[in-house]
């Protein structure tokens, strides 16, 4: 494989192309719908004769289901159906469809419950209140089993068995290695290099989408099912629902026009979708299920908590020599997307440095807690928290300049991560330079205040196909109407990140029209091509490439006609810009785009112009076709009396290739910063015997407007040959550096090393106490 990627060493370059639409400030194409309250979310759907569903959940973290008696519930007036696992096909499902053993979740389990909050039965009734009352009338007999909650306990020999036949509760393992790690460490030791090892504990985090999980399912006697779903991938939802109901994919339509946030938590099949579909199929009536905030918090998914052991060797002059890391993640009860997070965490733990020898062993361990999964950054924020702090401490231990050390080891363009990935564009060094300048320009910040830095990178979509999609990863169809207006059908999913707008910009640029000429159709499996959806920061590059290709196809058809119509010498090139079709060498010579379209359609025997495009990465290594890079600096002040943190400013130097939508880019930066800051010092999911202690927005704190700091961005422009117009990801990666950078700010402000997330006042005070004790003992 490594020879294969070597053939693809394009050198990257910066372009001086003037774009008409790309990187100009445009309104979000869904903006007016959103600011006027017209946007209809699944939460808002109401259908004639619609019933309301509620889910009965397990109070036990681990128990055998002996019997479920639904008689009393069924007798309650207004109740239309009660379903349990016995009313389903009992299919074990999972998003890693290629691997049967990782499809381990029956959403209404037949035999066992494995976490508190796991669904055991669902009711449909004429009102939500009646459905709720009916839950109390369902009698479930459990045999309570011993449970285990932490991965380091669950992996022990005598731990309770959570899934039959899974030894030591190890759900998935992942090994990544290149170079000779043992030899590199031995060599380092021999040559007087510096070796340091640390243990870290990274917490979970809830996605906390403002729209909780919600679905409306409507099965009709034709044998067709329509599901309005709050999902990050209409196609995944369609395929997964069809699978568990034993239906054909084409008989299931999923609609997800507006989605109230996703952040990695909404692309698996959830209980709202599944239970509403089962109930609707049974009753031939529409059924709506909306999770309460508490249900969403105890029984959806969460960012994966991780324990990291990190051992690193560095030469005395700051060369990174070798790393070996072991990671144990709290997988919770089921696999979900956790297997991907396990891999990506280990891979990005190496970023953005050129390790000659690197080894990662990841163990995802089942426990009797809510399953963990992907969340914005996909395992990388945890990995960076450990890696970037340890490197900072090592620099301090050796008296080295942390900027210089990072620069020395940083990825550069056309670098191959041995056997793993090929980096084309890379602005890492420039990011470091810019942040160094910025930080130094701030001068002395006073006591208890410092700037902490972290560098990192992220993928522009994953290459892996664990879902086993038979379709292209992204597809687009563009249709040009007689008046020149454009229908753009895409499968990519807008969950607020603005992909509809990004696609409209790419289409407008390619076709040479204006954004308002493009109508984007997305989030409907009946009308849009299949696409893997919104995860892994993939859509700008992958769906963007599909849209560009579709529009180039349509444009070529138009220009072929224009050549003939204008009777041009074949050496001339034509283009369309701002609705003007013209000879590139003589822009004044041309015709109106609308006139051309009208004529071209007539020439095609009245057929509208249709262009098709698709994208599937090939020969791009094992991870991603392209990588973003960044360095972030967090300016923070900590009160040593209270341990309270005040973040003054976050500055990020960011290489996302060619920015497409500047307003959207700023939004991603600021949104990621607030979510990542929450992860760094506020958000946590403490549990007692598997029971979540803060299942509401009073006790679970998120960043609110007053504590959100000033944010700034330095744009490092590179050109990514694999991306549409040179673009790379800009969504998830920005979540990666913040916890590490804040940890490093605390280190420089107070001289303490924080190895556990979140960075709470209690932990800071404890570390300060320990530091004092140590100094006193000296």
């Amino acid at each position, binding site marked *: 494989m490594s020879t294969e990627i070597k053939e693809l060493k394009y050198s990257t370059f910066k372009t001086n192309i003037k774009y008409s639409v790309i990187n100009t400030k445009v309104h979000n194409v869904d903006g007016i719908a*959103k600011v006027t309250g017209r*946007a209809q979310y699944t939460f808002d759907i109401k259908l004639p004769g619609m019933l309301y569903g509620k889910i009965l959940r397990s109070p036990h973290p681990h128990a055998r289901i002996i019997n479920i008696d639904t008689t009393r519930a069924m007798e309650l007036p207004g109740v239309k159906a009660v379903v349990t696992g016995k009313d389903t096909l009992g299919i074990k499902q999972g998003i890693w469809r290629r691997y049967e053993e990782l499809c381990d979740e029956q959403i209404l389990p037949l035999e066992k419950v494995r976490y508190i909050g796991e669904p055991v039965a669902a009711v449909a009734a004429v009102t939500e209140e009646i459905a709720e009352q009916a839950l109390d009338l369902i009698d479930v007999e459990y045999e309570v089993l011993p449970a285990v909650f932490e991965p380091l306990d669950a992996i022990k020999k005598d731990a309770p068995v959570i899934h039959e036949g899974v030894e030591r509760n190890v759900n998935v393992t992942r090994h990544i290695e290149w170079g000779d790690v043992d030899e590199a460490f031995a060599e380092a030791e021999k040559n007087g290099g510096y070796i340091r090892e640390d243990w870290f504990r990274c917490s979970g985090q809830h*996605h906390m989408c*403002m729209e909780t999980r919600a679905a409306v399912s409507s099965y009709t006697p034709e044998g067709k099912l329509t599901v309005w779903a709050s999902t990050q991938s209409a196609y995944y939802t369609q395929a997964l629902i069809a699978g568990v109901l034993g239906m054909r994919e084409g008989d299931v339509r999923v609609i997800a026009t507006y989605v109230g*946030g996703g952040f990695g938590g909404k692309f698996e099949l959830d209980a709202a979708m599944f239970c509403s579909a089962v109930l609707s199929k049974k009753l031939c009536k529409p059924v709506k299920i909306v999770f309460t905030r508490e249900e969403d918090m105890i029984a959806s998914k969460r960012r994966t908590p991780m324990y990291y052991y990190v051992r690193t060797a560095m030469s005395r002059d700051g060369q990174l020599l070798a790393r070996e890391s072991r990671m144990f993640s709290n997988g919770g009860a089921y696999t979900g997307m956790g297997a991907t997070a396990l891999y990506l965490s280990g891979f990005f733990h190496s970023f953005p440095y050129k390790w000659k020898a690197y080894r990662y062993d990841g163990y995802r361990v089942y426990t009797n807690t809510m399953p963990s999964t992907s969340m914005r950054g996909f395992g990388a924020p945890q990995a960076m928290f450990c890696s970037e702090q340890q490197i900072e401490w090592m620099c301090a231990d050796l008296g080295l300049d942390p900027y210089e050390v990072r620069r020395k080891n940083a990825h550069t363009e056309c670098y191959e991560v041995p056997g793993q990935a090929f980096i084309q564009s890379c602005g890492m060094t420039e990011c470091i330079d810019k942040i160094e300048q910025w930080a130094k320009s701030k001068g002395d910040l006073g006591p208890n205040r410092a700037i902490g830095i972290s560098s990192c990178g992220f993928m522009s979509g994953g290459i892996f196909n664990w879902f086993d999609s038979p379709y292209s990863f992204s597809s687009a169809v563009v249709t040009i109407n007689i008046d020149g207006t454009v229908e753009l059908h895409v499968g990519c999913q807008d969950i*607020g990140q603005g992909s509809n707008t990004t696609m409209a910009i790419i289409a407008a640029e390619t076709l040479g029209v204006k954004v308002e000429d493009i109508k984007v159709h997305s989030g409907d499996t009946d009308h849009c091509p299949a696409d893997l959806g919104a995860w892994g920061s993939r859509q700008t590059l992958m769906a963007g490439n599909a849209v560009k290709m579709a529009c180039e196809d349509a444009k070529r058809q138009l220009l072929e006609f224009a050549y003939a119509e204008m009777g041009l010498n074949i050496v001339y090139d034509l283009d369309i810009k701002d609705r003007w079709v013209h000879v590139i060498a003589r822009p004044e010579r041309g015709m109106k785009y609308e006139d051309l379209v009208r004529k071209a359609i007539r020439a095609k025997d009245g057929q509208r112009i249709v262009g098709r495009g698709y994208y599937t990465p090939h020969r791009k290594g094992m991870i991603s076709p392209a990588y973003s890079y960044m360095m972030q600096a967090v300016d923070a002040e900590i009160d040593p009396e209270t341990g309270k943190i005040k973040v003054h400013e976050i500055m990020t130097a960011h290489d996302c290739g060619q920015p497409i939508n500047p307003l959207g880019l700023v939004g991603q930066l600021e949104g990621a*910063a607030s979510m990542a800051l929450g992860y760094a010092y506020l958000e946590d999911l403490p549990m007692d015997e598997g029971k979540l202690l803060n299942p*509401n927005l009073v006790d679970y704190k998120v960043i609110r*407007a007053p504590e959100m700091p*000033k944010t700034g961005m330095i744009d490092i422009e590179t050109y990514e040959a694999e991306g549409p117009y040179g673009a790379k990801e800009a969504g998830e990666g920005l979540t990666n550096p913040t916890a590490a950078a804040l940890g490093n700010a605390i280190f420089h402000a107070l001289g303490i090393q924080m190895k556990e997330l979140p960075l709470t006042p209690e932990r800071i005070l404890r570390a300060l106490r320990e530091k004092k004790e140590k100094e006193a003992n000296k």
Partner: protein
Amino acid sequence: MEKRALKLSVNGQEYEVFIHPKTLLVEVIRDHLGFTGTKRGCETVSCGACTVLVNGASVKSCSVLAVQVEGMEVTTVEGLEQDGKLSPIQKAFLDNGSYQCGFCTPGMLMSATAFLKENEGREVTEHEIREGIEGNICRCTGYNSIVRAIDAVAKGTYKEE
């Protein structure tokens, strides 16, 4: 408790609904009258997604009973535009990209509208703006674009049409 009739005015229009006295204002707005612009994001009066104006003041509509606003003037996000013309704060949200998924946006716009009205004619600080929307959670934007939008309106960048 018996159901009863209730008169209230929403977005300038009189309505009469027949409700259980324990019905929340948000339920009347969304479920009885069909103004689904107003959202709900919690059960603990923590998120602000349900914010509306009652007689011009911002109120979390999940925190009051509908009968408590009898005879009062309620404004929801649907009432911000006049005959298809967007209000200044709506325009400022568009220009500043102050929304992403849009689920918090209706509540955020109502809090912003109330804040701007309360502070009409005086200069507001950035900190005051932030406190003005403290009760509204946005998981997507990181708030700063919302603060910029409110600031722009406060500074008179947008004129009422």
